[in-house]
């Protein structure tokens, strides 16, 4: 479970986070939706202790990130944007490496093999990542995020640049992980994706959570029939949001 | 982890490895040699027949190879005289043997009785050639007696054969398997003796100014005459010389005849000190000066002019040539006598004596030896000298065509009996040609591959010198060959 309490962060002249509050429950997919510049990435970085908040705190499975960063990070898996793969390693080596760094100490090969199987990657497992398609890269990135079976999985703009097939595959994987009881948090500026996947949506604008709830609740709350209209009303503009 | 630790220990061990030490050798500086080299000494019994008796130190020096590609070989330098000291000429040999030293050690040994190895020298005898000295009336007997008394030793222990044992002992001490011998003049006798007695310890031999074992070194008298004759012929062949000094030969013989046995006293300036002094000039002194001038390829170009000037009572050129000899040979006279009186004087035949008496300097020489040798009183050592020298070992012989001591004809005598012998004659060189034009290259070539045929074309690069026709310059006309 991920909880963010009253998180504020100023970067330069911009108040990137401004008293952000939300929580993402286990066994649910939580979407962080907001236009570009709303503070989604800053929020995620704070979660990984890459940024120190000016105020407030983030908790991962009740561990305060800023106080015990290593322990907190041990409960997280990150699907980054961009992926940042090592081109000269094969997915098997890469995932193995990430598993080790994430603290898997025993039966690493087995964990790696299972992950590869889960993502249907056996055919590309022993080819260097160089020259991979976007979909293959996505799978590799996701594999490293989940190889150590973290309770919480964070995805930063996961579908950006993915083709339709890859997006579908990713969705089904996320649903599967949700079913296994993981807490899944992802940031996106793509409404459709959020509405299709999320159990809960946190709508962000200017560093604040302007609304949270299930897509249905949000419609209700704003009195709009479609989610799209609801967003526009919540954010105050439709700038930076993709349909 | 274990491997790592032992690796570390290995590294540490390497750090504290002692430097290669050169046992008994100590760093030292030698005459005219900038670099430090190694010096050492070996105590040897003065009388080899009595090893427990008194010993003398035999000093030697090793000019270490620049890159010791042949650590079990060295080039042993044996100098002439007899009576010269090899270590005194370290700078000279370092220069001319530069290419040899590149890959091999150079070993210099002060032969017993010379240099630092219990030198047998006498002040008085060495000052014998003073300007005012009457060379024709020296009391050799008294001088020799005084010297012998001063040295107070049995000179019979200083023969070539005994010295050879010293060389061999030093070779063993330094751990060389084989030596390349390089002897000059009298040193070539040592080279031959070495090859005869210890052929397994010799890799090759270079002889510069060859004295064959069977050749009595006292025959130099005739060599001087021949060298003078060559000089006259050469002057006649050069138009300028012929034109300025016609009848040079005749003029010279006349001069010698006029001087006869008497000596002229002349007021002159000493060529070195510049002080006014009386010079006594007799036949012996004249012959001695001319003889030494013939040793130098440069000085001999002044001889026609010098002879010509004497006719006009101008002794300046002669004085200048005499000045050249002042710091001359620096021989240990006791050692010189020990060798000559044991190895050459006893084997003079009547015919030899007759020939010597006929020559310009031979008569004086013979008289001197007949006076001195009985006083030096050394046992004749003639074994090995009678039979002609021959060897299977590679030999390089170097001669200068104008050599007034060891002419090419001497080397030619043994040439047929050398299975791997080569003889290079430098057309315009005199005595001791190792430093001449490309001789150092030839020697290096020879030592690096002793059996191979040398390319001696470079010998031709040396051209003929013109004779000086006045006190300033040689002839300007094209020299006719």
């Amino acid at each position, binding site marked *: 479970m991920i909880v963010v309490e009253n998180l504020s962060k100023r*970067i330069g002249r911009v108040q990137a986070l401004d008293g952000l509050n939300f929580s993402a429950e286990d066994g649910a997919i939580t979407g962080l939706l907001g236009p570009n510049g709303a503070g989604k990435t800053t929020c995620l*970085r704070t979660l990984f202790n*890459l940024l*120190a908040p000016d105020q407030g705190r983030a908790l991962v499975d009740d561990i305060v990130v800023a106080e015990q960063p*290593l322990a907190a*990070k041990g409960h*997280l898996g990150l699907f*980054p944007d961009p992926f*940042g*793969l*090592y081109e000269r*390693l094969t997915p098997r*080596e890469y995932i193995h*490496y990430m598993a*080790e*760094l*994430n*603290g898997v100490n025993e039966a690493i090969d087995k964990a790696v093999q299972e992950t590869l199987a889960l993502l249907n990657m056996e055919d590309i497992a022993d080819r260097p990542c160089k020259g991979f398609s976007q979909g293959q890269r996505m799978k590799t990135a996701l594999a490293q995020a989940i190889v150590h079976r973290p309770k919480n999985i964070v995805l930063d703009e996961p579908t950006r640049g993915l083709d339709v097939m890859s997006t579908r595959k990713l969705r089904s994987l996320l649903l599967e992980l949700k079913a296994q009881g993981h807490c899944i948090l992802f940031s996106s500026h793509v409404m459709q994706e959020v509405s299709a996947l999320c159990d809960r949506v946190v709508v962000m604008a200017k560093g604040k959570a302007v609304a949270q709830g299930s897509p249905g609740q949000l419609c209700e709350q704003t009195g709009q029939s479609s989610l799209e209209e609801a967003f526009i009303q919540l954010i105050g503009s439709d700038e930076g949001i993709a349909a | 982890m274990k491997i790592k630790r032992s690796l570390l220990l290995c*590294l540490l061990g*390497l*750090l504290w*490895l002692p430097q290669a030490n050169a046992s008994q050798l100590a760093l030292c*500086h030698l*005459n005219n040699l*900038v*670099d*430090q080299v190694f010096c050492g000494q070996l105590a040897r019994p003065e009388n080899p027949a009595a090893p427990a008796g008194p010993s003398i130190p035999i000093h030697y020096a090793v000019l270490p*190879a*620049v*890159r010791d*590609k042949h650590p079990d070989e060295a080039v042993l330098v044996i100098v002439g005289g007899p009576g010269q000291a090899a270590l005194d000429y370290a700078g000279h040999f370092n220069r001319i043997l*530069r290419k040899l030293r*590149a890959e091999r050690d150079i070993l210099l040994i002060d032969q017993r009785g010379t240099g630092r190895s219990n030198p047998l020298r006498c002040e008085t005898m060495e000052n014998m050639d003073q300007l005012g000295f009457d060379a024709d009336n020296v009391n050799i007997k008294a001088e020799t007696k005084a010297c012998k008394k001063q040295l107070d030793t049995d000179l019979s222990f200083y023969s070539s054969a005994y010295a050879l044992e010293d060389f061999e002992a030093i070779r063993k001490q330094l751990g060389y398997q084989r030596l390349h011998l390089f002897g000059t003049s009298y040193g070539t006798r040592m080279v031959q003796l070495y090859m005869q007695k210890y052929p397994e310890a010799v890799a090759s031999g270079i002889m510069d100014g060859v004295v064959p074992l069977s050749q009595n070194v006292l025959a130099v008298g005739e060599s001087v005459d021949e060298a003078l004759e060559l000089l006259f012929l050469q002057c006649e062949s050069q138009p300028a010389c012929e034109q300025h000094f016609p009848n040079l030969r005749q003029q010279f013989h006349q001069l010698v005849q006029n001087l006869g046995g008497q000596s002229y006293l002349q007021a*002159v300036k000493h*060529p*070195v000190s*510049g002080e006014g002094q009386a010079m006594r000039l007799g036949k012996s002194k004249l012959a001695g000066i001319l003889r030494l001038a013939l040793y130098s390829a*440069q000085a001999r170009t*002044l001889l026609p002019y*010098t002879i010509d000037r004497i006719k006009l009572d101008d*002794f*300046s*050129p002669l004085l*200048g040539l005499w*000045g*050249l000899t*002042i710091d001359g040979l620096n021989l240990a006279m006791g050692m010189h006598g020990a060798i000559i009186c044991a190895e050459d004087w006893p084997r003079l035949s009547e015919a030899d004596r007759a020939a010597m008496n006929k020559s310009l300097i031979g008569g004086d020489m013979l008289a001197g030896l007949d006076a001195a040798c009985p006083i030096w009183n050394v046992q004749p050592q003639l074994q090995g000298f009678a039979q002609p020298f021959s060897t299977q070992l590679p030999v390089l012989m170097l001669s200068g065509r104008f050599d007034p001591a060891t002419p090419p004809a001497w080397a030619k005598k043994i040439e047929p009996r050398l299975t791997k012998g080569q003889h290079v004659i430098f057309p315009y060189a005199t005595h001791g040609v190792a430093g001449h034009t490309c001789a150092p290259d030839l020697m290096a070539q020879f030592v690096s591959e002793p059996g191979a045929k040398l390319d001696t074309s470079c010998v031709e*690069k*040396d*051209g003929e*010198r*013109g004779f*000086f026709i*006045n*006190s*300033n*310059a040689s*002839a*300007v006309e*094209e020299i006719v060959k």
Partner: protein
Amino acid sequence: MNRKVWIIYQKEMLDAIRDRRSVIAALSYAIGTPLLMCLVFVVLIEKFASPDALYINISNAELAPGLIRQLASQDIHPAGAEHKAKAISLIIDTDYPKQMHSGRLALVQLQGDFSNTQLASDIRRVERAVESYAREVAVMRMIARGVAPQVLKVLDVQVQDQAKPEAKGGFFVGIAIFTMIYAVFISGMNLAIDTSAGERERNSLALMLSLPIRVRDLLLGKLLAVTSFAFLGLFMIVIISKIAYGFVPWQELGFNVNIDGRFIAYILAFSLPVALMAALMQLFVSFMAKTFKEAQSYLTLVLIVPMALAMITGYDLGPELLSWLPISGQQKALMEVVKGNDLPLEPLLIATAITLSLCALLFWALARSLKSEKTIFSL
């Protein structure tokens, strides 16, 4: 060692070994430099050892047969139909015979383009030959006038070099050591950039920092990998140098360059801290850069410092202070060893201590900067 450091080290090494650029960078310098130097010296020595016959223009040669003879004996000849002359002229004055014969100055002009380095040594060769002839004639003139030529010598100057015989060639060995020590800077450089600025450029840096590992461990793993490469480069260049320099006929120049086991042990031991420092310095600079290219240009500038330090020491130019500093200190100690002198233990220890302190300082600063959000996101 910390397990994670080891894991990171292994991955970095694997990654680097697969990176052709890093490997080529490490090897090309280490292999190329000694081979190139070997080649250059073989050619140079060849030229030096047997100077070719030199053909020059000589005007009025017939007026000075003695001089021409002397030149010929040193393999300097007038050009003819078969041999083209180099652009060097020796002009013998028409008054030469008259002047020579009267003991006056005889004019000889030696002409050539002295700025032409190709000709300079030949010009000097002719000059020396002409001068040696003049000296010889001078000596004969003295003798002809009844003066012994040795009075001109005045002093018997005995020059005595106190260096050990093996110290000869120290100059060249200094240069060789410089090329070897510099290898630790060159060999690890590409990897240092790849693993820092490259990591940032590939966007994998943030991911790495998001993992449950200490920044210290991450850095240590990378540092060890870069150091390994630097050290490997050093090892290679030392071994290749040993082999390659063995083929150079140094003895023709009057010295030897002998890279023996003891020297190898010393250079590897002394250079280890330098390799560490080089790796840290390169990581430090590269982490400041956003891209590979940017890091490369920074490092090219920064590397001038150790290069200058090593070069000044190699040519033995700098002040005494250099024996106490990193790089130059180790290098000087090695040069002393090669010259057969005692190991300057105290300066070496101090230089090593300074090197290691610098390493600690750099490491601390680097770890600190990687915890700062400014560095991570180049804010």
